[in-house]
């Protein structure tokens, strides 16, 4: 399977070739050439910053449309924990879960329930492996992909479990097979997602060959469909909720760490802050922390690009919703343990390396330095690269020319015109 699939794409009709996205991309993965932006697939981590910042709405997330439900005889909805924060005046999660069934799903399985199992596994793991501290959460797919291309020393600190979405999917599918007797391929387990990174983690997973999830739909598409059903379900009795405080807290930043019941942790959100933490971590500045929670989106998953509500409003709603819930409703049974460890190692992908050998890379780095000295150092973006240094690297890689820099080009034209005049 292709190692570098992304779920962020460009609608080139809407793209005006401005430089907003190239300046904002945290991995410098975007270039503008011939008046249109293009994403360098190996550098992109699906964080969604370009989607947030594009003033022309040309950057889009890819996900499955709701029609994917029709491909299966029996469908199970997997709502992300952050989904619950999208709704106003909600005091019982069962209302949403019942409404999902009325909307067309045959059953619902809360991802927040599986999250409580991951919390329990993490508590046990951290307790038994104190020598490998600090541990880094592996729940945010953007962060994991960032680490594998830019912070290879930290790969061994990632918690070795699958994320709650995967665990919920395999449990939901097992339950559906038991309930209906249908074969697994007729059952569709569909994740309701806050972001494009989760789409990538299903269609190009790390740590395993195939995801257990059958489809990923966007929260912002489910939201208008489910609203009309919610009034109906407010008075119904069916209890579908399987998670408590810890589970639904995973929707906001700090929630995963809170489920570990420890006090030496750090929870950072927003991709720039995450990068800062990872850089300090690489320099081993955090030796007495036990756990590091990192979320690419501000506020946590509530800040994902496919959400409807303001992330901080959603986060405060989740706080209210969890107030009188039991601490956790899902607890580990013994047989679950083995299946939930990743069966494939996450490998370092040195996409930012300049050359194929150390000698070659050193040589190319010297060339980059030399070109940088000739460039104006304005980082204006007019060449289509985010910084002068990035342009220099592109030139040395053979992807760009010095005349792409309009300042150099202008100097060159002045010189030619002076030469012609003095002829």
């Amino acid at each position, binding site marked *: 399977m292709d190692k570098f699939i992304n779920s962020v794409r460009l609608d080139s009709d809407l793209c005006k070739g401005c430089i907003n996205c190239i300046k904002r991309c945290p991995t410098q993965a975007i270039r503008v050439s011939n008046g249109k932006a293009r994403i360098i697939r190996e550098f992109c981590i699906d964080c969604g910053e370009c989607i947030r910042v594009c003033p022309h709405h040309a950057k889009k997330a890819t996900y499955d449309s709701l029609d994917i439900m029709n491909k299966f005889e029996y469908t199970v909805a997997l709502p992300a924990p952050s989904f619950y924060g999208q709704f106003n005046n909600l005091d019982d999660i069962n209302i949403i879960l019942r409404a999902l069934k009325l909307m067309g799903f045959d059953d619902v399985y809360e991802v927040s329930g599986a999250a409580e199992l991951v919390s329990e596994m993490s508590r046990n793991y951290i307790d038994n492996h104190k020598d490998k501290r600090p541990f880094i959460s592996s729940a945010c797919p953007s962060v994991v992909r960032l680490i594998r291309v830019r912070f290879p020393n930290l790969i061994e600190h990632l918690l070795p479990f699958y994320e709650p979405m995967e665990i919920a999917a395999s449990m939901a599918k097992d339950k559906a097979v038991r309930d209906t007797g249908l074969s697994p391929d007729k059952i569709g387990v569909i994740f309701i997602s806050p972001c494009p990174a989760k789409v990538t983690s299903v269609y190009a997973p790390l740590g395993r060959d195939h995801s257990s999830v059958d489809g990923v739909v966007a929260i912002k598409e489910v939201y208008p469909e489910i609203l009309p059903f919610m009034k109906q379900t407010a008075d119904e009795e069916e209890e579908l909720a399987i998670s408590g405080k810890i589970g639904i807290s995973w929707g906001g930043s700090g929630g995963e*760490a809170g489920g570990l019941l420890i006090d030496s942790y750090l929870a950072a959100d927003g991709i720039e802050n995450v990068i800062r933490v990872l850089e300090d971590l690489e320099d081993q500045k955090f030796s007495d922390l036990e756990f590091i929670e990192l979320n690419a989106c501000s506020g946590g998953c509530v800040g994902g690009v496919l959400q409807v509500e303001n992330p901080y409003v959603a986060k405060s709603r989740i706080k209210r919703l969890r107030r009188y819930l039991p601490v956790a409703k899902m607890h580990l049974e013994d047989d679950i343990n083995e299946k939930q460890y990743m069966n494939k190692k996450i490998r370092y992908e040195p996409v930012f390396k300049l050359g194929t050998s150390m000698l070659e890379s050193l040589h190319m780095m010297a060339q980059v330095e030399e070109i940088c000295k000739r460039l104006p150092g304005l980082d204006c973006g007019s060449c289509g690269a985010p910084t002068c240094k990035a342009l220099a690297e592109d030139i040395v890689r053979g992807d760009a020319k010095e005349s792409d820099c309009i300042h150099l080009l202008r100097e060159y034209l002045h010189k030619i015109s002076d030469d012609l005049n003095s002829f």
Partner: protein
Amino acid sequence: MSDIIHLSYMVDGDDFTRAGEASSDLKSKLKQMGVDPEVIRKVAIAMYEGEINMVIHAHGGTIEVDVSEDKVVMVLKDNGPGISDIKKAMTAGYSTASENVRSLGFGAGMGLPNMDKYSDNMKIDTAVGKGTTITMDVQMK
């Protein structure tokens, strides 16, 4: 004729992640009995706060609930450290909860004040070093 339904709960002091299960169970049983929703809400909150206190501070205990036509009575008994200064403990915002449960929203210091607010009558029997018994009731509508 008055039927009284009696429910007993053991609150596990060793497993913090099970805290809140007893009040959750009582809530669903009261729903099945068709008790007025406002009454259920008051009972659930009062009992929840008491149950959490038991786990966080007293290492668990027992909860006995009697449901009759005119009221719900809850007796929460533990053999924990006891409350040394009841007046202080009843002050809103005062908490002795540790750091590691605060990120889940605990430790705001509203436990006892909320129990008082949501129950109709509350009695605290406590002795330092011996334990605490709290009796609360909520009248049916």
